[in-house]
């Protein structure tokens, strides 16, 4: 879960890292202070997108906020702005902690030259960016942080202060189950204070079960960094309170071929295949883990509720433990109610496949479905072409 700047700032403040004084506003009219007006969107590089404005009067701040709120910045509608005191920056540093997939360790990245051009620095002067792997069983003790900070070339009078921030940031990173936590810039003021002027963080979704307070503190956000659609919200409810299998993952897309794909890898593979043959998916989903009939019924209702569908592809590999008959029963119940006219192509195998196919055949007869059934002998991704061709024909037929 990506955090908004004001949220990641709240977290570092909890761990004793100084942040600028500031306030959150959801309308221009409500703004009652001057300062740096920052659009709260999840994308980075807001400065370059004009989403951060310096103001020195309340009037100007109101105007800047009004202009930003409701506008789209980097694809996301701005709902809130953070108005912060301007930090009197003497120097800027960069600190980030994230997981390195080569060392498989939480890794501290540190530079005595920070600011928004850190990616340029990484390319032009990589020596200035110091990396240090942290043993997650030991954490980051102060003395180790000081060694790293010294190695990064900080002036002697800054070593203890910067190391203290690093130590606190690691505690924040680990305690909050972040997958990345960045302070950029870490600003050194003329008075010698270190202030986290810019922060960014992503919280591990799989850790949310142990952060019940985050659920309240941080409202849900969509995969697209946009507000979830109605269908997406409906789908999300499917898995709530019922841990049997997964059937609530649904992302609404723009196409006309309804995807009922199973398995994370299988679903990705099938999306790739569909696109290869010129098809446009109406959604992404990945059910699995042997979800019960009721869940599959609800998921099917959500997926087929989207208007403009010209074909449905129910595709998956040979399941290891997901029961084809149990899941198909749920899908069939939904199809019986909805009685779709568009072609349905199924390619699936696994436990209960004979019974599952029988359920579909009987339903097709009963309700008059345009059903095309393929078993294990047909390679999974080759049925992508079949559904794309059938959907095209259906669409053309309907135009007439």
């Amino acid at each position, binding site marked *: 879960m990506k955090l908004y700047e004001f949220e990641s700032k709240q977290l570092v403040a909890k761990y004793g890292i100084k942040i600028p004084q500031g306030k959150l506003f959801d309308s221009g009219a409500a703004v009652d202070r001057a300062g740096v007006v920052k659009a709260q969107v999840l994308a980075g590089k807001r400065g370059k997108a004009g989403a951060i404005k310096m103001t020195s009067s309340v009037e100007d701040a109101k105007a800047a906020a009004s202009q930003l709120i409701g506008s789209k910045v980097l*694809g996301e509608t701005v709902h809130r702005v953070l108005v912060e005191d301007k930090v009197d920056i003497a120097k800027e540093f960069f600190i980030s902690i994230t*997981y390195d997939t080569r060392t498989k*360790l939480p890794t501290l990245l540190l530079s005595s030259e920070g600011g928004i051009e850190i990616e340029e620095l990484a390319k032009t002067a990589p020596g200035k960016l110091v990396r240090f792997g942290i043993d997650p069983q030991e954490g980051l003790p102060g003395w180790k942080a000081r060694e790293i900070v010294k190695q990064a070339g900080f002036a002697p009078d800054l070593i203890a202060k910067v190391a203290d921030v690093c130590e606190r940031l690691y505690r924040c990173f680990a305690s909050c189950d972040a997958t990345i936590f960045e302070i950029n810039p870490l600003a050194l003021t003329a008075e010698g204070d270190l202030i986290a002027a810019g922060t960014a963080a992503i919280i591990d979704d799989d850790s949310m079960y142990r952060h019940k307070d985050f659920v309240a503190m941080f409202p849900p956000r969509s995969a697209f960094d946009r507000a979830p659609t109605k269908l997406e919200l409906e789908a999300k409810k499917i898995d709530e309170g019922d841990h049997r299998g997964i059937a609530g993952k649904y992302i609404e897309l723009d196409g006309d071929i309804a995807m009922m794909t199973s398995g994370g890898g299988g679903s*990705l593979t099938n999306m790739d295949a569909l696109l290869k043959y010129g098809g446009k998916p109406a959604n992404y989903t990945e059910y699995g883990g042997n979800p019960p009939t009721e869940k599959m019924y609800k998921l099917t209702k959500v997926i087929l509720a989207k208007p403009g569908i010209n074909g449905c592809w129910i595709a998956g590999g040979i399941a290891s433990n997901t029961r084809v008959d149990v899941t198909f029963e749920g899908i069939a119940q939904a199809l019986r109610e909805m009685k779709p006219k568009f072609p349905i192509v199924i390619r699936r195998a696994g436990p209960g496949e004979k019974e599952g196919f029988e359920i579909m055949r009987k339903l097709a007869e009963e309700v008059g479905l345009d059903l095309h059934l393929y078993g294990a002998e047909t*390679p999974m*991704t*080759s049925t*992508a072409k079949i559904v794309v061709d059938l959907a095209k024909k259906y669409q053309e037929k309907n135009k007439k």
Partner: protein
Amino acid sequence: MSILINKNTKVLIQGITGREASKVSGEMQAYGTKILAGVTPGKGGQEVNGVPVYDTVAEALQNHNDINTCLTYVPPFAAKDAVLEALHYGIKLIDVITERVPVLDASIMLAAARKAHATIVGPTSVGIITPGECKIGPIGGNNPDRIFKKGNIGVVSKSGSMTNETSWLLRQAGFGQSTALGIGGDVLAGLPFPDALLLFERDAETKAIVMFGELGGTYEEQAAELIKQKKITKPVVAFIAGRFADYLPPSMQLGHAGAIIEGGTGSPQGKMKALADAGAMVADAHHEITELLKEVI
């Protein structure tokens, strides 16, 4: 010999009394896998499919000191602790079936395993199978003989379902598998592609390797580096899923936890190019894997 597991594998199942684990333990036994014991705290004294259950790993090992492999089938919140327990008592191969393990927990498990010189496969592993000898985890389901037959292709996949499907494609084309394994698609993997490829390279029975990769992370790129450095000389055929994510905004979580693209790294195209440049064969659609394999073997 194949890799990781064989006729001599003797298994302990953590979480054996769970719904999925008890079913899969039956399937494993039907395949001939020797399950010596299970551990579920509080259920010591019970039996699952004739396998004795203990409260702790220590007790299980006291009673069955030839256990050499652990299958971890516990809920996400308990996975790290279960693995640390198994490592503490000296088990050197741990296959973690559990999905949705927090990344921090995975980093701790993996750090502990490195210190213990043990191998962790997973998290989010669908299991490992050496056809004709041993199967651990749900891989192959209740009919592994349909998909898996002893042969000379090593199969390694980030995706559980695609470990089966990829192996099935091979089977239909007349190939068999030396060992097939699901390594999971998490951000941090115990036995990622480079490590798996090195194991297959050293295995006399494996003549070629098929890789199923996905967007996110750097494991496919690391494997490409090994191929380029000629540390892997056996033919490698790869399929990398996730190109469709190009149509979507960045930082979306798809497929598995590791499938996050940040700042352009970890893209499927990047992986495909790295592998192709290194000399691996890269399939465009999944079902084209076997055509490529036939060209090199």
